C-alpha cells in the first residue's frame, strides 16, 4: 500500500472521529453560551443516546427509526429534568460550584444507567449495511457517511436556528449579555432550559450514530465527553464553525499521530500540539483577540 493511500486513510479516519468530537463539543458550547457552565454531564447524554437506542432496539424490539426518536426524546427528558432539578434552583452559585453539580450529575446518570442496564458493552447494527466503500484506495463504512451527513445537517440547522429564529436570536442575546437580555424582556431561564434541551438532544444523536461503530456501554461518556470538551475549547466555545474545526483537528491529529508516529502516544501528541497552539495564540484558535473586561 502506498504512503499517500495510507495518509488518505488516516485523514478519513480522523475526519470521522473528529466529526463526532465536534458534535459533542457543540453541546458544550451551547450550554456554555447560555449559562457559562461547562457541563461535565454532556458525555453522559452521548452515552444515554447509545444505551437507550440499544434498549429500544434490542430489548423492546422497536424498528430503528422509532428507537432513535425515542432515545433522543428520552435523553432530552433527562436533560430537562437535570436543568429543572439541579441547575435552576441555584440562584447565586458560582460557575465553579455549578460545574461540580454537573460532575455530580454525570456520576449519578452513569451510576443509574449501570444499575438499570448493567455493565456490559452492547453493539448496535449499522444503519445501512456494513460493506466498506472504497475512496481512492482508502475505505470508509456507510456508517461514517451517516455520521458526516447528520453532523452537517445538525450544524446547518443550528446555524439557521441561531441566526434566523426568534428563540435562537434570544439565546444568542443571553450569551452576549444576560442582564441586558433580561432587560429587553427575554426570559433568560427559559433560554437556559432550551440550551439544555438542544444540547442533550444533540449529544444523544451523537451517541446513537457512533454506537454501530464504537459500541456502547454505561461508561463510554467520560472519554467522549472529554474529547468533545477539547473540541469546543479549541473552537473558542462558539457554537459555530470553530467547534467543527476543533473537533476535526483533534480527530486528524490523533489519527495521524497513531499512524505515523506512535499509537501509544497519540493522545499525548495531539495535546502537545494543542498546547503549543494555545501558547502561541492564548486567546484561542478561531477567535479574534478581544479586549479584556476589567
Amino acid at each position, binding site marked *: 500500500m502506498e504512503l499517500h493511500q495510507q495518509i488518505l486513510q488516516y485523514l478519513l479516519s480522523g475526519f470521522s472521529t473528529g466529526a463526532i468530537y465536534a458534535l459533542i463539543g457543540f453541546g458544550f458550547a451551547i450550554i456554555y453560551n447560555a449559562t457559562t457552565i461547562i457541563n461535565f454531564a454532556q458525555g453522559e447524554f452521548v452515552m444515554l443516546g447509545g444505551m437507550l437506542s440499544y434498549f429500544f432496539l434490542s430489548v423492546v424490539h422497536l424498528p430503528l427509526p422509532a428507537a432513535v426518536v425515542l432515545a433522543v426524546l428520552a435523553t432530552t427528558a433527562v436533560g430537562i429534568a437535570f436543568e429543572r432539578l439541579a441547575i435552576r434552583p441555584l440562584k447565586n452559585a458560582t460557575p465553579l460550584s455549578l460545574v461540580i453539580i454537573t460532575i455530580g450529575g454525570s456520576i449519578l446518570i452513569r451510576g443509574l444507567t449501570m444499575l438499570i442496564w448493567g455493565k456490559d458493552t452492547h453493539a448496535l447494527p449499522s444503519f445501512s449495511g456494513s460493506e466498506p466503500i472504497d475512496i481512492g484506495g482508502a475505505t470508509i463504512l456507510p456508517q461514517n457517511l451517516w455520521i458526516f451527513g447528520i453532523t452537517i445537517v445538525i450544524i446547518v440547522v443550528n446555524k439557521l436556528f441561531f441566526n434566523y429564529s426568534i428563540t435562537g436570536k434570544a439565546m444568542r442575546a443571553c450569551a452576549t449579555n444576560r442582564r441586558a437580555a433580561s432587560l429587553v424582556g427575554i426570559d433568560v431561564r427559559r433560554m437556559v432550559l432550551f440550551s439544555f434541551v438542544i444540547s442533550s438532544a444533540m449529544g444523544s444523536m451523537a451517541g446513537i450514530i457512533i454506537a454501530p461503530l464504537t459500541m456502547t456501554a454505561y461508561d463510554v461518556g*467520560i472519554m467522549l465527553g472529554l474529547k468533545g470538551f477539547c473540541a469546543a475549547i479549541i473552537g473558542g466555545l462558539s457554537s459555530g464553525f470553530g467547534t467543527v474545526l476543533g473537533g476535526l483537528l483533534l480527530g486528524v491529529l490523533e489519527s495521524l499521530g497513531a499512524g505515523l508516529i506512535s499509537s501509544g502516544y497519540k493522545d499525548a501528541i495531539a495535546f502537545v500540539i494543542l498546547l503549543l497552539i494555545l*501558547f502561541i495564540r492564548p486567546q484561542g484558535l478561531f477567535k479574534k483577540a478581544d479586549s479584556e473586561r476589567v
Partner: protein
Amino acid sequence: MKREIVKFLILALLVLVVPLLLKGGYLMNVLVFVGINTMLAVALNLLLGFAGQISLGHAAFFGIGAYCSGILTATFGLNPWHAMAVAACAGTVLAFVVGFPILKLKGHYLAMATLGLGIIVYIVFNEAVNLTGGPSGLSGIPNLSVGKTVFDSDTKNYYLIWGFTLATILLSLNLAHSRIGRALRAIHDSEVAARVMGVNARLLKVRIFALSAFISAVAGSLYAHTMTFLSPASFGFNFSVELVTMVVIGGLGSIYGSLFGAVLLTLLPEMLRTFQDYDIVVYGLILILMTMFMPGGLVRGIPAMIGAVSARRGNGGNEHA
C-alpha cells in the same frame, strides 16, 4: 491571629488523639490517605481558591512526585528521603517551566491546558514501560525510615503523613495571611487592577503554581512510600477532578475548607459501602445536594446551617414563652 493559633492547635491535638481512640484497624489506613488528600487539596486551593487559577491536571504533579520517588528508590536504590527531595524538585521545576506559558492563558483555555498537561503526563506514566513499569505498575518501593524506625505500619505512617499535612496547613495559613496572600487575592479579584498597583502578577502566579506543585509532589512521594506500589490509574483525569471537587465542596479559598473537603470525599465512599452497588448513585446525589445547599462550601455552609437551626429554635422558644 490568636484565634488562628488556637484553631490550629486544636486540629493538631485532634490529629494526635484520633489513633488512640481507633486502636489500629482499618480506619487508620483510610486516615493515612485522608492526610495525603488533604495535602493535595490544600495545595490546589492555594492555586484555585487564592490565586483564582484553575487546574484540571493537578494529579500530574502528584504522580510525578510519586513516580520520581518510586523509580529512584525501587530501580536505582536511592535513599527514600533523598528521592523525596529530588521528586519535590522535579515537580516544582516542571511547574515553573510550564507555568509561564500556561498561566498566560485564562479561564477555559487554562482549564483545557492544565487538563492537557495532566493527560500528557498520565500517558507518559502509561507508555514509558521501561521506566515506570507501565500499566502493570511499579512495585518494590521501600518504606521511609528514620534511624531504626521504619514507617511500615498504618499507625506509623499516619503520624508521618499527618506531620507533613499539618506542616502544609501551617505553611498555607501563614501564606494566606501574608503580603503574598493579599497580593494573590488581588489577582483573583482583578488581575489588571493588581498589576496597576505594582503586583508582578505573572511571576506571582507562576510561583504559587510551583509551590502548589511542590506540595503535591511531596504528597506523591509520601504516597509512593506508604503504598510501596504505583500504577498510572491513580494519577488520571478522574483524580484531578476529584481534587477540584474536594476544594470546591470544602470551600474555595479556605484552608480548613480543603481539609473538610478532603476528609469528607475520602471517607464518603467508605461510609457508602453499606449501599453496595448503589454507592456510586448515592455519591453523585450527595455531591449535587451538597453543592446545591452549600454553594459556598462546607466551611461556610455548616455554620450557616447551625445558625439557621438555632435561630429557628430561638423563635420557637419565644413563641412558647
